[in-house]
Structure formats: C-alpha cells, structure tokens
C-alpha cells in the first residue's frame, strides 16, 4: 500500500480497480496492459524506475498513458518524473493522484495539467482513514476524458500540453 493510510490502495482495491474497469468497458479504448513499477527509497533509483516505465510506453507505441499512484510526498518524485518523461516523448498523458491541500506536488512539471486530484477528505488532509482518499469510477472517468481530449488534439495536429 501507499505511504499514508487514507490514500493506500488495499489488495481488494487492486482486485476490483475502478480505472481498469472503466478503461476495459470503453469501446473507444484498446487497453494494452498495466505497467507497474515500485517506488524505491533512493532518489537515483526513483528516476531510473520511473523513466524506464516511460521508455516502455514509448517503445510500445501507445497513443496515450494514464499514470496512477496511491502515494504522495516523496513518491511524487517518481510520479512526476514518469509523467514528464512521457510528456517529453510527445505522448498524451493524464493521471490520478492524491493532492488535497496537504499533499500537493513536491516537484512541478508542465505535463501535470491533466492529473486528476482524487481527494475526498473535506479538509484535503491525510485523515488516516483507510480508503477515504481512494479514487472511484468517477475519478477514473475524468482522467480518461482528459486523456481522450489530449489524444484528439494530437490527432488534429493541435498543441496538447
């Protein structure tokens, strides 16, 4: 699970993941697969693993990527690097991430514009309540919608970042 109790994804969450459900049921999307990388502790490893994920995205010739994590704080380093490496390669990218008020990105990138904040806590904090700040089908649909807009813009030769 992730770094804080309220954002942690349990094994049950993975078993019935809303994002995979939404993408799998969408007739306009060919869901290629799920690429999973761990978030290591050392910075140098974080950059390596997250960049490797972006390289796989490029080599697979995908039309778009949704990057998701249940972590925040130091996990932003890998997360943002992954999104940026995908964006720099000219691949449309949207995302799901918990920010609220307490967990806003600790690093910045212009490619983060279509990352959906799935905060549910009224004060936007890490409440320590298991499951509270988890993404739902509604959040997943929002990320898919944003990705589709980016992909449509790219197809029409428009600027999408």
């Amino acid at each position, binding site marked *: *699970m*992730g*770094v*804080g*109790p*309220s954002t*942690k994804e*349990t*094994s*049950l*969450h*993975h*078993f*019935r*993941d*809303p994002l995979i459900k939404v*993408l*799998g049921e969408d*007739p*306009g*999307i*060919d*869901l*290629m*697969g*799920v*690429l*999973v*990388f*761990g*978030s*290591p502790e050392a910075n140098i*490893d974080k950059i390596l*693993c997250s960049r*490797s*994920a972006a390289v*796989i*995205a490029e080599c*697979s*010739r*995908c039309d*778009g*990527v*949704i*990057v*998701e*994590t*249940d*972590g925040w704080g130091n996990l932003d380093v890998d*997360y943002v690097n992954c999104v940026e490496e995908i964006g720099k390669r000219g691949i449309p990218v949207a995302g799901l991430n918990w920010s609220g008020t307490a967990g806003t990105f600790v690093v910045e990138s212009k490619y983060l514009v279509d990352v959906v904040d799935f905060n*549910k806590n009224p004060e936007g904090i*890490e409440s*320590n*309540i*298991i*499951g*509270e700040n*988890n993404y739902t089908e509604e959040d997943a649909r929002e990320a898919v919608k944003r*990705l589709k807009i980016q*992909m449509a813009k790219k197809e029409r030769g428009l600027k999408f970042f």
Partner: protein
Amino acid sequence: MAENIELRRLSIKSYHMTEVAFGDENLITPDGKWTFKEDMSEYVKAHSEVIEDIKLQIIMPGDHDRHTNAIMDIIPLSTKVLGKRGEGITHTVTGVYVMPTGVDTEGEQVHEFGSCNGNLKEMLHLNMAGTPADDDIIVSVDITFKKGLGQERYAIIEAYKAVDEWMQQFRMQMKKFDGNAATERHDYYDTVKQGQKKVLVIKEVIGHGAMLDTWFFADEPCGVEGGKSTIDMGCMPVMLTPNEFRDGAIHAMN
C-alpha cells in the same frame, strides 16, 4: 470497422457468504457458510520468531464501534481453479473480507506515516473499491508482533505469510466449489480493439522497504506464497495484461 480480437477469457465466479462463525472445524461451503476455529496457535508457533499472538475477530456489518490496531490490508479470499493467472477460472467470495491488523507487544502500531489504529467505525471508510461495503462482514486477523518488530520488513513478510497460510486451507476447499453454484459470474477478456486508441496504464506502487512493500505473481490471487517483492526486483516496471491485473496479480503488503 475493424473487429475486436479476444485473446483470452478470465471468468471470476463469486460465492456470497452470509454466515461467518467460529466453530470446531475450518470449513467453507458454496452455499455461503464459513466456519473456522478461533485458535490460531498453529500459525503463531510456525512464525514464533516474530509473532507473539494472533487473534481472530468476526466483525458483523454495523458492529464497527470497537478498537482496531493499524489496518495492514483488506484481502479478498480468492483462488485459482483452472488455467494460469489472467485466464481460466477464479473463485472468490463476496460478503466477507480478511483484514490483517498489527501492533507489537509494547503497543507500537504497524505504521509509517500516520496510523489508522483507533475506533474502526472512524478509521475505515466503507463502500470504496478497496474497502468492505456497509453489509459486508470483516474477519479481522489481529497480529501481535514481538517487541520492536512491527516495522521490520522480514517480520511483516512473515505476518503476511501466516495470514496467507491460514487463508490457503479455505482456498483449497473453494477450488472444489461447483461452478454452477456461484452467486455471480463475471467474464473478462483481454481484447485487442483494432482501430481504437491504444492506452497504457502505469501504476506506481510502494517499494520503500520496512513495511512498505508490494508483491507480484503469488500462486493465488492476492496471495503471498510464490510471489515476488517489487523491492527484490529493484522496483523496475513489470507489464501485466489487464486480465492478469484483474486476477489479483498484485498484493499490497504494507
């Protein structure tokens, strides 16, 4: 219009549990009855280097006004019946989920960044994808670690192994459940949708060490035995088909 190519099918058959109780034997049946012994000394003994005690609790819907130690995970009881991960048949139960919790003998909770110990009513947000629903039963497996071991990686792994070993005996029984007796059946396909936008999902999971770990590829869905830790794989990316992912290829090991 280009046709869809179906690569493989995964059928997940679920059996809804309605009666969960302590009893003299460890038995789960397709008609919704799950009975198990209260005594966990066998599993404590097998992992006695790190575990002091394990207590089971059956928490009925709405009966959440009680203390809980830090919630480590919520695990569906699922088993592979036919085929490899991501294809064939998987049996799972609904209506009840397993919830390991942890504390050490000194009262130190198993946590890193904030702890979810406290009143269960306040510390568990129900009805999410990763949590039980209002009308679900919870089986709490409360683990007491030896002093100071609740935040040691090897101890956490041992604890998950103990929970997994306990669950495995029920999985073995579930493998023999009559497929026609399932309450629900869901068929999932790995499909090539020709001509549609190719989308990749990238998931970042935890691999920091200590009690922050994620395991892949256990023999059973959301299991431990046979699995590999992302930490041991250098946290490098691993590609899964959508069906492998749906078939419990990942176990969150916090």
